């Protein structure tokens, strides 16, 4: 009995303290990550347009790769991360983990849109078509649908507790299905022997690799910054009845 009470105390402390301790921490971290994101983006853009030479086959259009590839990577990683936070939420029952998952979803969906759009813009001059139903593009489109489902479910439920649990469960179900969907789409694509895009796998020059790396880091920093900003908003909204938040906001001004 006593241990159960202690556990309860610990749990409530964990819940209470995490958002409370996290808020000022997020406040301090956001400018750093945003600053890094801006600096890295500027370096990355400079390298994309002024350092790396045009491709001998594709000309300049391949410069789109430097945002297409990071966006596509981020779109997939963010989904995994979202499911991971949903899992943490269920195991530890920490509200903050749910806020992170919710904050990640919209950014993930945006990167998915960017990946699809830039893929299309890259495909037209290079392969002569805006869209092909190849395995990668099709899976990316389905990933967008998964994000939209998650975001819509979250938005449709008013009670934050129920929204957290329902959307968390959906994220976990989704992440189990992602490999199955990817596998089946690849199978479907090879069966129909339809369009498949093969990028010529010439060894990437060092400067190209570095440019891509800088862009990937820029996208990461931006993601962290914007997610923290969204979590910060979420904390203000959910903890508006607590006195520490008022004090915290008083300190800022």
């Amino acid at each position, binding site marked *: 009995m006593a241990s159960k009470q202690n556990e309860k105390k610990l749990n409530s402390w964990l819940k209470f303290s995490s958002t409370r301790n996290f808020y000022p921490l997020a406040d301090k971290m956001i400018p750093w990550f945003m600053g890094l994101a801006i600096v890295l983006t500027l370096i990355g853009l400079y390298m994309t347009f002024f350092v790396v030479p045009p491709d001998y086959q594709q000309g300049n259009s391949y410069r789109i790769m430097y945002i297409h590839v990071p966006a596509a990577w981020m779109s997939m990683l963010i989904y995994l991360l979202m499911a991971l936070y949903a899992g943490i939420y269920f195991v530890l029952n920490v509200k903050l983990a749910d806020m992170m998952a919710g904050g990640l979803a919209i950014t993930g969906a945006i990167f998915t849109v960017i990946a699809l759009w830039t893929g299309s813009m890259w495909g037209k001059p290079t392969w002569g078509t805006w869209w092909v139903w190849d395995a990668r593009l099709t899976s990316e489109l389905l990933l967008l649908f998964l994000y939209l*489902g998650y975001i819509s479910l979250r938005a449709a439920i008013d009670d934050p507790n129920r929204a957290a649990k329902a959307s968390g469960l959906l994220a976990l179900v989704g992440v189990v299905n992602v490999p199955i969907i990817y596998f089946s789409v690849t199978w479907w694509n090879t069966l129909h022997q339809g369009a498949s895009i093969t990028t010529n796998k010439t060894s990437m020059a060092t400067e190209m690799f570095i440019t891509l790396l800088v862009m990937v880091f820029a996208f990461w920093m931006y993601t962290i910054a914007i997610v923290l900003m969204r979590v910060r908003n979420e904390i203000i909204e959910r903890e508006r009845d607590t006195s520490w938040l008022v004090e915290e906001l008083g300190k800022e001004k």
Partner: protein
Amino acid sequence: MFSVINLMVRRDILLAVRRPQDVMTSLFFFIIVVSLFPLGVSPEMEVLRSIGPGVIWVAALLATMLSLGRLFSDDYQDGTLEQLILSPQPLALVVLSKVAAHWLLTGLPLVILTPLLGLLLGLNGDEIQILTLTLLLGTPVLILIGSIGAALTLGVRGGGVLISLLILPLFVPVLIFGTGAVSSMNAGLGVEAHFSLLGAFLVLSLLLTPWASAAALKISME
């Protein structure tokens, strides 16, 4: 365990028999969607034959989705669901029985009608046979996966449209292997792989989705 399932399935079927229009609507929907394609695409039998399996599968997908909203909602509205959650039976078992009844009422009729619609779209005997078998294996998977969406959107505003957004992307593998079997047979490749994969999907979803749906129901009823 089986007596519980038996009882639950019988109850749901009895309720549906008393109000058959619910079951009929999704069946009519299935037929109408399929018969729109000759009008919308082309009445040429060759064209229809090539898109036939896909058309029937997509129509079955949509018909299933249309009926999924009612999987738990009647029990939710009259308070039965609350009783079921409080009852000593594991909730996953209750979900499984409800899914079984739902499949008998809405999935099986689709499968039975498929040969008829296949004839309308100019499929030959072998194609119809394969297609019907894929639907027999695939429709339970659709309802099992769909039960998670139905449980999550219970009592949520705009639930009907929302459920399609949640569930349709998850239906993709079933759709691919369902329609793939027919084109694989026509290409002279075997259909065993497709059937084993559909079978694997069925077994996996039988084992996993009732638990997920039960968890979702508990979340929705809190």
